[in-house]
C-alpha cells in the first residue's frame, strides 16, 4: 500500500535522518540543554515512523503510542531540567564535560 503519493520508504528515510541529527547532536555538543533537544529529536523521529506506519497498516496503534511517546518526552524533559538545574547550582555550568569528580 502507498501513502497517497509518498511511498512508505521515504518516511523511513526522513525519520532515520532526524534520528541521526539527534545522535550527532548528542555526540558533539557539550551543553546539557542541547542534549535534551537532541533527545527530543530522536523521540520525534520515532513518532514519524509510528504515525506513517499507522496509516500504512491501517490501524491506530501507532498513532496512540505516538501520543504516549510525546507525553513521556515531556516528563523526561521535566526531570532532565531539574537535574540540569542542580548541576548548575553545584558546578556553575551546564557543560556535561565539567562534572568530573567521579571517574568516567
Amino acid at each position, binding site marked *: 500500500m502507498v501513502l497517497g503519493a509518498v511511498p512508505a520508504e521515504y518516511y523511513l528515510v526522513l525519520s532515520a535522518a532526524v534520528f541521526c541529527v539527534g545522535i550527532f547532536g548528542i555526540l558533539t555538543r557539550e551543553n546539557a540543554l542541547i542534549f535534551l533537544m537532541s533527545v527530543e529529536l530522536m523521540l520525534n*523521529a520515532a513518532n514519524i515512523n509510528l504515525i506513517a506506519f499507522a496509516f500504512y497498516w491501517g490501524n491506530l*496503534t501507532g498513532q496512540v*503510542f505516538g501520543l*504516549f511517546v510525546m507525553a513521556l518526552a515531556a516528563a523526561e524533559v521535566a526531570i532532565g531540567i531539574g*537535574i540540569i538545574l542542580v*548541576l548548575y547550582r553545584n558546578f556553575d555550568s551546564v557543560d*556535561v564535560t565539567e562534572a568530573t569528580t*567521579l571517574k568516567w
Partner: protein
Amino acid sequence: MEHVSNWLLLAPAGAFVVSAMLLFVIDSFDPESKHDTLLAAVTTAGAAVAMVISAALLLSGTADSGVELFGGQLVVDGMSLVFTFIFGSVTALVGLASADYIEDLPHKAEYYLLILLAATGMSLMASANSLAVVFVALELASLPSYALVAYLKTNRGSVEAALKYFLVGALSSSILAYGISLIYAATGSLLLPDVAAAAGEASELYTGVFGIGILMVLGGFAFKTASVPFHFWAPEAYEGAPAPVSAFLSSASKAAGFVVAFRVFVVAFPIDSVAGSVDWVLAFQVLAVLTMTLGNFAAATQENVKRMLAYSSIGHAGYVLIALAALTGLGDQGLVLGSGMLHLLVYGFMNTGAFLFVALAEYWNVGRTFRDYNGLGKEAPVACVAMTVFMFSLAGLPVGGGFLSKYFLIVGSVGAGVWWLGAVLAVNSALSLFYYSRVVKAMWIDEPDEPREIERYPTALYVAIVAAAVVTVALLPGILVFDSAAFDAAAALL
C-alpha cells in the same frame, strides 16, 4: 471474559501504588513530617504486602497459565509474579534501611514516594505484554530513579551521578522508542504475541528494518540491566547515589530490565522466525561474555568498595544474560531461563544487603575504600558477618543461595550446548572471589590505620542487613522450594 478475581492478580502493583498514594496524602497533611518512621513504615509495609501477595499467588498456581488483562496489554503469569516478589522484597529492605540513612535529610516523603513509584513501574514491566506498555513502564521506573540518584542535591557526586545516569538513560530510551517504531513498521503491531505472529514474514520482507529494530530494543534493555554496551553509567550512578538507592537500582532495576528482556525476546521474537534478520541468541552470547569479563576485571582493580560492587553488579548482569544466550533450542530450555530468574532472586537479597552494608559504613563515616573498612569486624561483628555472607554468596561459595543459582546457570548452559558460557562464568566467579575476599580480609584481619569509635548502631539499617543475610543463607536450601516455580514459569513462557 475477565472476572473480578483476575484484577486481583494485579494486587502486587496495586500495593505499590496504594502505598505511594498514601505517602502523598500523609505528605500533603503533614509536610516536612517529623514522623519519618511513619513514612518508612508505609513504604516497607506496602512493599512487604506486594511481596507476600506475589508469593501467595505464585505458590497457589492461580496464574500458571498466564492471565491477560486490558485486552492483552498486560499479562500476569509465573514469571511476572517471581519478579514482583523480587521487587517487593528489595523495596521492603531499602525502605527499612532508608529510615536511618536519610534521618537528617529533607524531603523524606518524596524520597519514599519515588522509590514506590519506581517499584510500580518495575512491576508493570514484569507484566508488560505489549511494546507500548514496555516503554511506558520502563519510563515510569526510570524517571523516579534519575531523581533518586540526585537526592543529595548539594553533594557534587550525587548530582554528577544523576546527570550521567540521566544522559545515558535518555539516550537509550530514545533508541528503544525508535527500535519499537521500526518493529511496528515491520510488523504492524505492538502486542508481543501479534509481533511474534508477523515476525516470520517481517524478517523475510523487511529484513533490515526489523533487524535494526530488534537490535535497538536490545540496546534499550542493555541500559536497564547495566550490560555492555550501555553499562558505563552504572559505576558512576551507583557510586554517587545514596547507598540505599544504589541497592535499589542495582538489584530491582536490573531485575526489571531482565524480566522485560526475557518476555520481549522469548515471546515477541521467536528465534526460529527472526533468525533470518538478526540472530539475537548470538548477540546475547557475545554480550554475556563481554559483560561478565569486563565487569569482573574492572571490579578487581577498584579501591573503592561501592565502585567495586557497582562493577560486580555489571558482572552479575553478564551471568544472567546467559539465560538468554543459551536459548539455543537444545536441552532443557526452561532450566536455562528459570536459572536466570533464580539468580536474580538470590541476587536481589545478597546484592541489596551488600549495598546496605556500604550504607551503614557511610552512616558511620568510616570512608569508602577497602583500607577504610580495616578492623570493622571488631566493632560491628554482626553486620560484618552479614557482609561476609553477602560477599561469599556473590562469589558463588556455598554459604548462600548464590552458589545454587550459579550452578543452575552452568548446568543450563552445558545442557544447551554452549558449555563455554558456563566455563566463562566459572572463570569469572573464581576471579570475583579475589576482590570479594579483599573486603572480608579488610574487615576481619587487617588492623585499622587509626583507632575509631562507632557511637550509634542504627536499628532499622541493622534489621535490613541481617534480614537480607538470613534470607541469603536460607535460600541455599530454600531455593529448592522456589526452583520448580521458576522453572515452570520459564517453561510456560517458552
